[in-house]
Each structure stands twice: as C-alpha cells, then as structure tokens.
C-alpha cells in the first residue's frame, strides 16, 4: 500500500475500505491532476467532492468574482467573500476542507490562445462552463490533447451529463455538431435555474471523475451515454450517443486540426469563463 500518513488513513478510511477504491484507488486519487473549468454552479460541487475525496492536484479556471446572486447555488462561496475572485474563494474553501489538495488557480478567460497550455498538465478536464463557444473550445482542445472531458450542462430543471473520451467514444461535436443560433436558447441568467440542479449535476460529474481516476472501466462509465436528469419530474434517463466517423474533430478524417474562432463559430460572445 501507498505511504499514507495516519491522518490520511483515518480521513480516507471509507474509501480505502471499499473494494472498488481501496488503498490503490486512494493513492491514484491523491496523485491525480484534474482541471475544473468554472468555479460556479457546476464547479462548486465538483470542487467540493473532488477535494473531499483527496484528488491531489486541482486546477480551477474562472475569471469572475463572487456575486450575491451566485450564492443561491454556488455553495463553495459565501456572503463574506462577495467581491473576491472566484478562484481565490474556491481555494480558501478547499484548503479548509483538505490540506492534501494542491490547488492551482487560473484567473483567466479560456481562449484558443491559452487553452492548450492550461490543459496540458492535467489528466482530466471537468467542463462546468456556461456558454456554447467555451463548450466547443474545450471539446476541440480535449480531443487534440487526448484528454477526458467530463461534461455537465444545465437549463432550468434539466441537466445533461456525459464523459467524452477521445478515441473511445463520441465528442461534443459528435453529439451536437452545431450550436443553436444566437437568441434561440435563453441563458440560465435569462431563464432561471433551480439552485440545487447544478448541485446534482456537478455531483454526478464528480462521481464520473473519480471513477475515471480509479479505473472503474468504460462499461460502467458515461462514455457513449448521455445521462438526462429532470429535477421537476424526478427522472433520470440514459440515451446512447455515438462517435460520428464524419466528425470534423474526432472523425476518421478530421478537418479541424487546430483551434478556431469559437465566438465566430457560435456567432456570440462568450460570457463568464
């Protein structure tokens, strides 16, 4: 078994005792490098549970500041930290929860110019962003760098969760080849979102990240599956999604081999991260 301290054996006892995690799995978690895109509604539960689980290296990308209207759902921030950078507030939260975690804060807007450099040091990317240009940017960068992308998205009472694993399953473009035209789909800011919904969806993302780290296997994962959660109907469903051999990024003959202008592709400016 790994070189756990007595404190670590005590802290992670409920993991170590699970045959599916065990000492080996816990060691993998402590050595893992996960990048969380967004420290908002989805990012909050993702960061909270990954930090509690002892994921040893967590990068956080966000360039927003904590606003009072965030606190309805972004549970890692609090009233005392309104006005602080979200990455700093998130770091404070994680350090109080678990000092085993090395937190790397990246207070930047993700762009085609910086994303490859930011992603390259991580094993797994968790997409908790909030707009289509960033979704496509993150997808293409993950395919190009062969990174697992644990995707979550929310709208009002609906959530979607899946795992994009290059070469194994589909990517975001295989699932949604094009974004909606501007104005066709209102944002959460315009349409509202039930505060606990990102808590559920982000927690599902955290589960998938941990399974990926401990090697739970593709048969158990959301690779090739789209999980739909509807909070109003208390309904969870899974649909099959497939890699498109004609996908411009991950298909057999890719036509997009370097990052493009995603705001132009989506004809709208990216907001938030």
């Amino acid at each position, binding site marked *: 078994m790994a070189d756990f301290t007595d404190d670590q054996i005590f802290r992670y006892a409920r993991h170590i005792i699970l045959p599916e995690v065990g000492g080996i799995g816990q060691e993998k978690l402590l050595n893992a490098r996960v990048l969380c895109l967004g420290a908002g509604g989805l990012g909050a539960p993702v960061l909270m549970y990954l930090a509690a689980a002892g994921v040893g290296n967590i990068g956080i990308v966000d360039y927003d500041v904590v606003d009072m209207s965030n606190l309805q759902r972004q549970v890692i921030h609090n009233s005392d930290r309104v006005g602080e950078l979200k990455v700093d507030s998130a770091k404070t939260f994680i350090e109080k929860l678990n000092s085993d975690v090395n937190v790397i804060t990246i207070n930047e807007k993700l762009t085609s110019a910086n994303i490859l450099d930011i992603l390259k040091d991580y094993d797994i990317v968790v997409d908790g962003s909030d707009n*289509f240009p960033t979704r496509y940017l993150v997808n293409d960068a993950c395919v190009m760098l062969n990174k697992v992308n644990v995707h979550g998205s929310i709208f009002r009472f609906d959530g979607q969760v899946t795992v994009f694993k290059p070469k194994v399953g589909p990517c975001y473009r295989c699932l*949604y080849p094009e974004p909606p035209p501007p104005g066709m*789909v209102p*944002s959460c800011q315009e349409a509202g979102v039930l505060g606990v919904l990102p808590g559920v969806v982000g927690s599902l993302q955290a589960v998938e990240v941990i399974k990926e780290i401990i090697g739970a296997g593709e048969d158990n994962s959301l690779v090739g599956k789209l999980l739909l959660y509807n909070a109003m109907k208390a309904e969870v469903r*899974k649909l*099959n*999604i*497939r890699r498109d051999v004609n996908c411009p990024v991950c298909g057999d003959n890719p036509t997009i081999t370097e990052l493009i202008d995603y705001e132009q592709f989506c004809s709208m400016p990216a907001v938030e991260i």
Partner: protein
Amino acid sequence: MATVKVRIPTPLQKLTGGLGEVDGDGNTVKDMFESLETKYPGIKERIYDEEGTMRRFINVYVNEEDIRFLNGEGTELKDGDDISVIPAIAGGI
C-alpha cells in the same frame, strides 16, 4: 399508423400548451413531426431550419437511439415508441 409518445423539451413546451409529453402519429419520424405540426403549429420550424433540415443542435432519439445513427427522419416507428427531442444546453453557473 403508429402512435408514439413524444417528449417535448422545456423551450418548446409553450407550443404544446405546457405539455412535456404528447402523443404523436406516423410511421416515420418525418411523418410524426408533420402530424405534430398540425396539432401544435410552429413546432416544426423550431426543429427544422429554413432549408427543411433538422437543426443540428437538436437530437431526436427513438427509445434510447439517436435517429442520426438509425435511418434519420426515415426511421420507422412502432406503437409505443418513446421519442425524445433533446436540444443542446450550455448552462453551468
């Protein structure tokens, strides 16, 4: 003619009088959307673009399978099939 259950996504429910599930009729996906349009005018133009092709940010599933990997709009339906219309959503904060 097959009668199927069609799940309507939240943004389109104002066209179905707030209903999240409606009955659809037709032997293919294409026929089923034609018949939905007569019952709920306006729904077709939300799912198809000006050229009459299905919008690429909306997927249609027959039971658990995406019709793009079946026979597209020509995918045949049978009584009791569960049709889901699922648009891309991007929210996260």
